[in-house]
């Protein structure tokens, strides 16, 4: 069970949360104000839109914990966390632009429709000036589109599809999380070192947009190091039993299985692949291997021992040793008793980045924020020096290649860092074919 259960005192400190003291929602018309939901009172409301029900509810809960922490830090409570290590010093711990930070939460249910409804209610009812969250690409793209239309900023949470800052990019949307292309670029050299350049890969791919983009990215990256792609089989999203997809793998001549799955799909397909004994086999004279390009701590937990030795990538890990990471992990761990996931870190960073941009811009006007964030270089939030690229609003920073740890000491210790792939190695041109077709458009302040 993981329920946020703060004591009353802490709650009273957190103060103007949720219900109380909301800014007046000025929905879409804004005859009086310059932009949607311009805060008029002493508070500014942020909307945390995470999955609270459905299969990704645990990830949503972890994101929510990080959001609460970020709000505390912004309002000058707690130890300040990564605000102390953040390279920009605009934030002073007195809220944002002197206004106390309040928040509302919503449930995306990991469905685009529900996520949009929830975001709309935050904007229309609660007067949220910024929406953030999400733990799947479909949801992120859908909510990002909504925020663009409504004229508020969207700070994406966990979204890994290339489309979020590619085909579906929007001027009001920003992504801190890495993407499928970066996973491929970071993984390929490591795979080359570990498994050699003469490998034959067999892809199992979840049959929806994210799966397709990740598969394409990984295929391109691995073919870049000389691997062949034997086959790519699309698996139904509702599958729970992957046996009929896994069974033919060995006989196909492939010696690496790439699982382009996430969440429950990944837990099941990996568990079953291990059960089939794939990793005990020798094919083409080589040890058979499995790769899971996108890892998440929670899913690693769900897969248990099966991930031992399996390579994958993450946006961030609490095991990093830079100052920003240490500060964040310390305040998160002190508050909740366990280390944060990389989804938690990304939303924490996004919240601070938004607040900092508002401080620097001197306004909550989305166009001001966009201007402040575009091309922004910063450090001290983990992952080393980072750039928010102006051309597509994608963050560029180091990417971590992880490996399932043998003899993990506890459930939070399932993954270990194999390599921190430097930022230069995962960068790409904004018009890279995998990201082509989109149009950032103009920032929309809504008024």
């Amino acid at each position, binding site marked *: 069970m993981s329920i946020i259960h703060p004591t009353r005192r802490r709650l009273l400190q957190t103060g103007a949360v949720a219900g109380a003291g909301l800014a007046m929602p000025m929905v879409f018309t804004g005859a009086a104000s310059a932009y949607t939901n311009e805060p008029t009172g002493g508070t500014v409301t942020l909307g945390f839109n995470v999955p*609270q029900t459905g299969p990704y509810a645990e990830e949503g809960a972890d994101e929510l914990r990080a959001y609460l922490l970020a709000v505390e830090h912004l309002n000058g409570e707690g130890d300040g966390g990564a605000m102390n290590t953040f390279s920009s010093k605009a934030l002073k711990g007195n809220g944002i632009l002197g206004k106390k930070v309040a928040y509302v939460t919503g449930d995306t249910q990991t469905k685009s429709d529900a996520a949009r409804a929830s975001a709309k209610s935050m904007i229309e009812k609660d007067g949220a000036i910024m929406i953030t969250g999400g733990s799947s690409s479909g949801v992120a793209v859908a909510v990002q589109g909504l925020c663009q239309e409504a004229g508020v900023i969207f700070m994406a949470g966990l979204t890994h599809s290339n489309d979020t800052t590619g085909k579906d990019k929007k001027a009001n949307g920003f992504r801190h999380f890495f993407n499928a292309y970066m996973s491929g670029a970071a993984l390929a050299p490591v795979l080359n070192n570990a498994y050699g350049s003469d490998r034959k890969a067999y892809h199992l791919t979840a049959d929806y947009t994210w799966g397709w983009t990740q598969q394409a990215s990984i295929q391109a990256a691995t073919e870049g190091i000389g691997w062949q792609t034997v086959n790519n089989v699309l698996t139904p999203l509702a599958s729970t039993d992957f046996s009929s997809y896994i069974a033919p793998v060995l006989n196909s001549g492939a010696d690496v299985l790439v699982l382009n799955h996430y969440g429950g799909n990944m837990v099941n397909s990996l568990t079953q692949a291990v059960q089939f004994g794939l990793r005990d086999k020798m094919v083409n004279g080589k040890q058979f291997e499995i790769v899971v390009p996108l890892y998440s701590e929670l899913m690693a937990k769900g897969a248990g021992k099966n991930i031992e030795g399996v390579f994958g990538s993450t946006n961030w890990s609490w095991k990093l040793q830079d100052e920003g990471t240490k500060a964040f992990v310390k305040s998160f761990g002190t508050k909740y008793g366990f280390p944060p996931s990389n989804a938690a870190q990304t939303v924490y960073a996004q919240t601070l980045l938004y607040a900092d941009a508002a401080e620097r811009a001197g306004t909550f006007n989305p166009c001001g924020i966009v201007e402040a964030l575009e091309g922004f270089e910063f450090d001290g939030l983990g992952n080393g020096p980072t750039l928010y690229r102006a051309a597509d609003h994608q963050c560029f920073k180091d990417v971590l290649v992880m490996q399932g740890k043998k003899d993990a000491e506890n459930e939070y210790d399932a993954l270990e860092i194999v390599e921190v792939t430097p930022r230069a190695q995962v960068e790409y041109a904004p018009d890279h074919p995998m990201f082509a077709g989109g149009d950032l458009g103009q920032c929309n302040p809504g008024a």
Partner: protein
Amino acid sequence: MKILGLNEKDSRFLLIVIFLTLATPVLLQPFPEGSGMAQFNAGYPDLMQRFAIFGIFAIGFNILFGLTGYLSFGHAAFLGIGSYAVVWMYKLLDYNVIWGLPLAVVVSGIVALGIGFISLRRSGIYFSILTLAFAQMMFVISYSDLFGRFVGTTITNGETGLQVYGNDPQVLLGATEPSSPHFFGIVMRENFWTPQFGDWQFTFNNGYYFCAVIAILAFYLSLRIFRSPFGLMLRAIKTNQNRLNYTGVHSRPYTLAAFVISGMYAGLAGGLLAAMDPLAGAERMQWTESGTVVLMTILGGAGTLMGPVLGAGFIKYFENIFSKINDNVLHQWFAWMPDGLEDAIVWVLHFFVGKGWHLTLGVLFMLVVIFLPGGLVEGGTRIWRFIRGTDRKEKTADATHQPEHVAYVAEKEEF
């Protein structure tokens, strides 16, 4: 007073419904901003639009399930089809909803005709499973854009949802035309009036009133159907199909007509969803969504006129308002209690509110099915009878699960 070919009772009923629908932005906003209760306000455009849209969906579903007793578990498919039709019109022509909405109704009607023609050859649970199978099939086809892959261009845009891109043709798009859904220049997402009286703030939204007018029409239509010979035949199908057949009536065309009509209602509702928010997601076709409309209808009272609308409002309110009550809010509510007691109460309640709203809904739904087969409408009637002291033995002992008669009372007195 009689209007629009209705008798006196129905005319009054319709006028009340019209009044309630038009006054929704005020009625749903009873608490002042900034007060602790403001959280329970529901008078913001998105939720009001949803009330109206899902009201239409449930009214249509009720024509099939409430009248004929055929339990379809696949109506969400039509919802999705309606949405896709509207968004495609945005992509091809322009943002005026006038092109998409009729198309949504027509296309979903045609698909309903096909599915209904096949599924209605069976009855009982076989029918339910057939509709479920069709809808699930259409859901996976949309979610993975299988149809699009087959023809080589995107049709549903997969799990991201169909949306308008800058490079879409939009051949009718004028230079000054709004860049979001509108009805001849009336932009759906804009508000035409946002008055403020003291701390009370009201939002009068174009989109809501557009939906509201259509919902009233839809309701009027369903009222007419209920009172028509066609409606009578449908109810006869529910109570004794064998007798009806030996009375010389061919029941299949009637059920098919009901199926198509309710499919068209669902398509209209789906179209309106896309008219309010120009994105069509595949999730709205999932079988659990079909389950939701069943829940709405039963919760409110299947076979009654007002029940499904109430049920739809109830569930959407739960989904959007109840789910936002998090532990912090609970602690604020019970802060006046001693610490231990407060924590205990919050601990119990948090299973039921916020992210636990599904649990509350499930419990509530079970209670309704077990104790109130006529849904909230029957509950309202019972309370009304109790207050008036009318003899309760008269109807409540009757477990036939058919409250058409009691409905009248409820319809009149519910609000």
